[in-house]
């Protein structure tokens, strides 16, 4: 919508990639921030003792319901469970049986739902880690695009080439090459003299080292 005829307009490197970094970052954050806020612990049915104790403590503090979980430790409380009222109301036996059955089914489906939810959460984490990977692999291109303000046709511009005889700071046996990646600050790389300027490997090594340095700086 921003550019009315995208297919017929020239598009430069900057226009193309500049927003990429921010957007991937935003997407990654949108996933991560919330995913780490889920106040839910898997699995619910057999939590670790510590977790279980923490939950009971919380319930006791909140409204005392956690105390009811200790009914098994009191004989009289257990007797309540086995009271049989069927002589007074025969229908109660069936009602109780129905309740127990539906409870069991509900617990079974709750457990199944939990397992599925856990898998779903794993998928979310996978997506999040893919976004992270995308960010790591590609954001340097996007950041590099931030530097393309000029109309210069070169991605890499060699500004000076020197050796120890012309520059005392250059170590013996090395060629110093200063380059710019798009409009970046100058990047200096040292190439062993064994790789001569006429060797096709020379510029490949220069560009590789310059890019490595750029990416390293960008990571820092």
């Amino acid at each position, binding site marked *: 919508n921003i550019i009315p005829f995208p297919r017929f307009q020239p598009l430069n490197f900057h226009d193309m990639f500049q927003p990429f970094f921010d*957007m991937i970052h935003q997407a990654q954050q949108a996933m991560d921030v919330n995913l780490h806020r889920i106040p839910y612990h898997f699995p619910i049915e057999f939590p670790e003792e510590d977790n279980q104790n923490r939950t009971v403590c919380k319930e006791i503090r909140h409204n005392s319901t*956690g*105390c009811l979980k200790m009914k098994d430790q009191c004989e009289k409380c257990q007797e309540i469970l086995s009271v049989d009222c069927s002589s007074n109301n025969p229908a109660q036996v069936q009602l109780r049986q129905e*309740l127990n059955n539906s409870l069991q*089914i509900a617990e079974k489906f*709750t457990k199944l*739902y939990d397992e599925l939810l856990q898998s779903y959460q794993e998928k979310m984490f996978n997506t999040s880690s893919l976004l992270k990977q995308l960010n790591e692999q590609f954001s340097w291109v996007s950041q590099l695009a931030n530097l393309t303000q000029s109309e210069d046709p070169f991605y890499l511009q*060699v500004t000076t080439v020197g050796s120890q005889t012309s520059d005392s700071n250059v170590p013996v046996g090395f060629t110093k090459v200063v380059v710019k990646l798009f409009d970046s600050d100058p990047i200096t790389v040292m190439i062993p003299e064994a790789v001569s300027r006429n060797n096709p490997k020379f510029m490949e090594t220069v560009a590789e080292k310059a*890019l490595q340095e750029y990416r390293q700086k960008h990571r820092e």
Partner: protein
Amino acid sequence: DQAVSDTELQEMSTEGSKYINKEIKNALKGVKQIKTLIEQTNEERKSLLSNLEEAKKKKEDALYDTKDSEMKLKASQGVCNDTMMALWEECKPCLKQTCMKFYARVCRSGSGLVGHQLEEFLNQSSPFYFWMNGDRIDSLLENDRQQTHALDVMQDSFNRASSIMDELFQDRFFTREPQDTYHYSPFSLFQRRPFFYPKSRIAR
């Protein structure tokens, strides 16, 4: 040391630019691969979501049956009230003592206020709650609430991230074939058609 002419510097720049261009191409290939993986994960996610919906329906039906049986039982609870109440009066002190001991030992914080609150709670509670497995029912309902919340949070996260990624892949990137001024265009790797949306969207 020979001076390097401007022409030579320019030739070097061209060679170096080719390398940078190749690396950009590689990065774009990487993006495409990751994008494919994201799409695969998304397909699996959709399938899981459909299983979750199915399980949710079954769980809700079972919860409804449970609550229904509970209500029916509550309506008939008067029939053995005396027996139940007598047992409850004996159960309460034990429950209170056990709970206070647990709280002091495990929760490690002041138990004065909790003791008072617990007494009130037990006095207001009914032995029928035990008899009907009320704690299991409460636990199920609480789990249901938490599960719903957890799924909502995940869906919200995913929707936000996915809308950003859609915008990124469709409008800014994959739909456009740039006429870059540089002659080693890396973008020919990508098709002009958007990845996620069908052709009709472009037609519109």
